[in-house]
């Protein structure tokens, strides 16, 4: 059952990722990107990584992609602004670079595989709800980075206000 579910979801995710690249209208690209993100989230759920699944949906499908949609709507693209069919040279480069990436990543995947199998057999991880575990770790071991991250966000907010506002000269 789980295997079938995995393949169905994987196909949906991959197909929508392909559509992101091949469709011409940006709005379609973004919508398919959201679908890709949701597909990834479901795959995470299959891996018992509920927390990452939630984050995936809230941050990527929610916040980031909505931002994309806003930008595209604000740009209000006309048919004539859309890019022409991609040039062969660019295609060639793209294919070569992607292949190079696959070749480079192959040893990485190969070295991960045993670790992943090890994790899958480790029963403790699935037994405890991992939201629980993450919360516990976040407020004990990772307390300091967690607090400093709030500082980081504060600095970013103040910074945005400084850059964004219209300055009245003193």
């Amino acid at each position, binding site marked *: 059952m789980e295997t079938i579910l995995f393949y169905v979801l994987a196909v949906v995710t991959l197909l929508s990722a392909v559509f992101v690249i091949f469709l011409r209208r940006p709005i379609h690209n973004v919508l398919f990107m959201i679908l890709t993100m949701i597909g990834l989230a479901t795959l995470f759920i299959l891996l018992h990584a509920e927390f990452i699944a939630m984050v995936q949906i809230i941050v990527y499908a929610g916040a980031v992609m909505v931002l994309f949609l806003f930008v595209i709507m604000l740009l209000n693209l006309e048919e004539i602004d859309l890019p022409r069919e991609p040039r062969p040279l660019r295609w060639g480069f793209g294919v070569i670079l992607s292949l190079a990436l696959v070749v480079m990543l192959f040893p990485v995947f190969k070295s*991960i595989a045993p670790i992943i199998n090890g994790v899958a057999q480790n029963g403790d991880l699935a037994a405890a709800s991992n939201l629980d575990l993450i919360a*516990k770790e976040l407020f004990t071991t*990772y307390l*300091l980075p967690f607090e400093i991250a709030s500082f980081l966000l504060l600095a970013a907010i103040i910074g945005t206000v400084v850059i964004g506002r219209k300055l009245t000269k003193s």
Partner: protein
Amino acid sequence: MIPVPEINLGGVLPALILGVAGLLATLLGLFVRKGAATVGAIIGFTAVLIALAANAPLRFMNTPAFSGMIVLDTFSWFFNLLILLSVGLTILISMKYLTDQGLDLYEYFAILLFSSVGMMFMVSGTHLLMIFVGLETLSIGVYVLTGVLPKSSKASEASLKYLLLGSFSSALFLYGAALLYGASGSLSLAGLAKYFQSGSVSTMGLIGMGLLLVGFSFKVAAVPFHMWTPDVYDGAPSPITGFMSVGVKAAAFAAFLRVFFECFGSAQVTWSHILWILAVLTMILGNLAALVQSNIKRMLAYSSIAHAGYILIGMVAGTAMGAAGILYYLLAYIFTNLGAFAVVTMVGRKGEANISIDDYRGLGKSHPALALAMSIFLFSLAGIPPTAGFIGKFTIFGAAIASGYIWLVIIGVLTSAASVFYYFRVVMKMYMEAPEVEPESLKFSPSMALALTLTVMVVLYIGIFPTTYLNLATESVKSLF
């Protein structure tokens, strides 16, 4: 029930003080009608002085804190000191700058303080997550400060460029950390060190290490990851350029040193080859490009790239002596470069109208004190005795020779000989040439006078009596080896 973790507020007190001062400056700025920037600067400077006192006890500690996220040791103490010094000097220079520009930006100082909080956690971090959060806090602050000038398209362009490239390099750093976690199952430097000592390092672990190297190289502006530097240094407000070239560089080198010596120490043979190449490229390109610049800020930007190259030599050497040389070099560089940027700020005037090297013509006659100070800074950058820059270069080159990197030192010496040309060109302009039109005379402010006096005195003092400071540097790097 979640057990309450051990909280050691005393250990992070210096950073805490700066953070609270930043918040205070932001809040008070809302209530003060006029001169809010001055209030912010005074709060910031006071906080730096208090934090210097709070930092002192760290020197004699060697304790991990916050579940091994940070460590309070002499190394952290030394770099906290460097950061506080550079923030303090930057605040002094900025006061004059903001007055010149007619800006009343109190958030400027708040963001400067926030950024230095990030630096402090970056230098004391012993966990890649902590280092990353520190790195981001520091970067966000600096991105904003770069574009803080309103209605300056050059500054906005620089800020956006820096943001895009900086985020990209942060992403690479994060990716590296993720791969290392995948390979070793740990993000703490101690855990990673154990993994690298075990001898069976997977390709994934090595790729992770390489990506961390790229992330750090970007922050310290080593060739070929330097592309952002000239544009950003040119577009940013002069005091911030100074701050970036010393504070950010010092923090990035601190984390670079800690991560690479403490946890990848056993793989030193692997990464020292890469750093060897980076150091050579950085020195050659930085110095050659600086030769042809006519804008003083761009010239100093390329010179700062070149200096990153010299510092990398110390890392290649891989010994305690090399690391101590780096610490001393950074100390000297902070005073030298911030001093030089103080002069650039002074001469720049409103809207940074005078940042061409030609604007320095006749400075020796019209403002002898300023010209003398600038000459001392340029001598120190070129590495001419009796200035601090000479001792710094001497120690680093000496360490590299002791480790057998003769060729690296030969290239270093040759490129620094070339660098003398462009530093002296400014000195020549100041003393030998006359300006076409006599410019209005410059006005010193008390803060600027203080900053310049301090920097000149320190550059000469630690250049003539370096022993105490070299010993301090040696003491500080002990925990890395």
